[in-house]
């Protein structure tokens, strides 16, 4: 059958699903990844590699907990280093999933149906990675729970004025809602797997997960409402999370942090990197698991367009930041601009501009948007660029603030790198497991995309 996933330029939009499918074929094709296909060598190799990298993180954490945060490059004045940079970066990546699932659902973008499932999974794992760092970066990680809202033995509560407490609430809420959203979305598919699975214990497991779902119309009705409401709630939530994260900086008085542009600019950046990560995952997945029928060029192209758009919002953020530094006329703010352009970290600032502003402009060309390989590279580039952006914001703002006598430098240590790269291993390892154990594409939602399903509505 003709490969419909590649569209000739000039041809109209690709379909969201290749024709020639019916309820059954969809079901078989997707469920077979989990149930029928044997574990491939590629999968095992890939998983092992990630797992090894993961061990590096564990080594770093062990050292960290034994010796203290001094094993990192942090110091006075640069109290926050890689830990916070990575936290913000991962949280940002974690935005695409919920965004795709929730916002696109509300916007009735039916093409989302085939990518939302693993986008949500990606969100969860990214949030998990992000969630580790605030705990690691504490001087006394074993008392992290003191940030939770409960009175200690003296009847003393956390300080609700601190953005870090807001973080606790925002991130944990986001994690919970995303998890629920993801699970609820999978219940009907679990039911499907329950029926298809032939091994008894597998039936049993998926049966438990399916909660006894039986596709009753009444259930569907409540299910759809709940799902829609969840999407409606998740939408402001996903926007709020990075807003709150940006408050960690915007509330501070550090020049380069203390600015009102941060919330929208952080959210845009989050979506930017989020979609980049979606593509970095989607492009290989659809290739190796032959899902071109469901993740079509349409999805890829749309994601690319979203990146282009958000990329420009981010660009606006940079421009406005620089403008306000100058326009504000403040001695210290003014120096932020100078220091970024001429300071010791200038190279990385220019690298950031190249990665986030310059290179992605090729996305204007449809030929590029439709070329999976190039797109993959650009997505990688954007991920790096967004990491650099966080590095510039956190470290470069801190290293020269108000009193010249307290200017300093930050040098990441091996442990900084070990833990950062380790989380990449953790993330990808989780994705490997997910692909193998859970329906990576929403089966029942794909069914609704079939012509015969559409037909009902037009009676």
């Amino acid at each position, binding site marked *: 059958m003709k490969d419909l996933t590649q569209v000739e330029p000039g041809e109209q939009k690709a379909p969201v699903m290749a024709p020639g499918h*019916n*309820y*059954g074929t969809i*079901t078989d094709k997707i469920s077979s990844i989990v149930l029928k296909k044997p574990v491939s060598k590629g999968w095992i190799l890939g998983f092992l590699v990630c797992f090894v990298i993961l061990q590096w993180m564990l080594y770093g954490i062990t050292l960290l907990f034994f010796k203290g945060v001094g094993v990192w490059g942090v110091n006075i004045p640069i109290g926050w280093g890689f830990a916070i940079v990575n936290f913000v970066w991962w949280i940002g990546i974690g935005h695409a999933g919920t965004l795709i699932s929730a916002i696109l659902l509300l916007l009735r973008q039916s093409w989302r149906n085939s990518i939302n499932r693993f986008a949500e999974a990606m969100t969860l794992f990214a949030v998990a990675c992000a969630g580790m760092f605030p705990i690691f970066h504490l001087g006394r990680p074993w008392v992290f729970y003191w940030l939770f*809202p409960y009175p200690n033995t003296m*009847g*003393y*509560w956390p*300080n*609700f*004025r601190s953005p870090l407490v*807001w973080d606790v*609430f*925002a991130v944990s*809420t986001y994690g*919970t*809602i995303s998890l*629920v*959203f993801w699970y*609820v979305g999978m219940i*009907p598919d679990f*039911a*499907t797997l*329950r*029926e*298809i699975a032939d091994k008894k214990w597998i039936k049993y497991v998926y049966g*438990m997960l399916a*909660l*006894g779902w*039986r*596709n*009753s*119309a*009444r*259930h*569907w*009705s*409540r*299910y*759809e*409402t*709940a799902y829609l*409401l*969840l999407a409606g*709630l*998740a939408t*402001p*939530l996903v926007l*709020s999370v990075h807003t*709150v994260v940006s*408050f960690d900086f915007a509330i501070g008085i550090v020049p380069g942090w203390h600015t009102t542009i941060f919330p929208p600019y952080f959210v845009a950046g989050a979506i930017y990197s989020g979609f980049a990560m979606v593509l970095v995952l989607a492009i290989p997945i659809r290739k190796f698991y032959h899902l071109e029928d469901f993740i079509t060029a349409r999805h890829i192209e749309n994601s690319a367009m979203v990146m282009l758009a958000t990329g420009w919002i981010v660009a606006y953020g940079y421009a406005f930041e620089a403008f306000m530094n100058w326009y504000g006329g403040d001695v210290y703010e003014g120096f932020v601009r100078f220091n970024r352009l001429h300071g010791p970290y200038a190279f990385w600032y220019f690298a950031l501009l190249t990665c986030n502003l310059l290179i992605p402009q090729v996305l204007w060309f449809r030929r590029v948007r439709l070329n999976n390989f190039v797109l993959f590279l650009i997505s990688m580039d954007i991920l790096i660029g967004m990491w650099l952006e966080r590095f510039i914001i956190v470290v470069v703002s801190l290293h020269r603030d108000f009193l010249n006598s307290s200017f300093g430098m930050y040098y990441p240590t091996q442990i900084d790198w070990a833990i950062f790269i380790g989380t990449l291993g953790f993330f990808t390892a989780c994705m490997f497991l997910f692909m193998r154990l859970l329906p990576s594409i929403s089966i*029942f939602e794909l*069914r*609704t995309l079939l012509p*015969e*399903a559409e*037909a*009902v*509505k037009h*009676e």
Partner: protein
Amino acid sequence: MKDPKIYGLLAEFDTAEAVVEAAQRTYAAGYRKIDAYSPFPIEELWEAIGFHKNGVAPVCLLGGLLGGTGAYLLQWWINTISYPVNIGGRPFHSWPAFIIVTFEMTILFGGLSAVFGMLVMNGLPQPYHPLFNVDRFAGVTRDRFFIAIFASDAKYDLLETREFLQTLHPHSISEVPT
């Protein structure tokens, strides 16, 4: 006549259109203790069997309101009554700072109550259901459509109901043992 050993009758259909039409006719025929089953959500289907209000939205609203007000009141109480502290010269009741947590809690409680409300009202989790005894019913998770008329229905009579179902031209009809 009613057979205590039978839970209801299950008619199987091939397409969405068919099942929707059949559902409408069943409801029109006066059957009320009925349900329809489809591999994916079909709004027309639950409309057809006369299921209009599912009650999830009010639960969600209630949960959200509780979460929000609760969060704000807690912060207000802590900072002005329970343990007021001078933090950086800010007033005890720094309401702008309290909005964030309030918002997050609204979302959290709203979302969770929507989901758990849905599950509870659906009577889930429910690992066993008589329908699972019908082998053909497994198809509902793949590509089959069903209509069930339960023995508990006032109008239900094994023979009459079976004849009525025949008039809907189902793919098959099976009895659901209790």
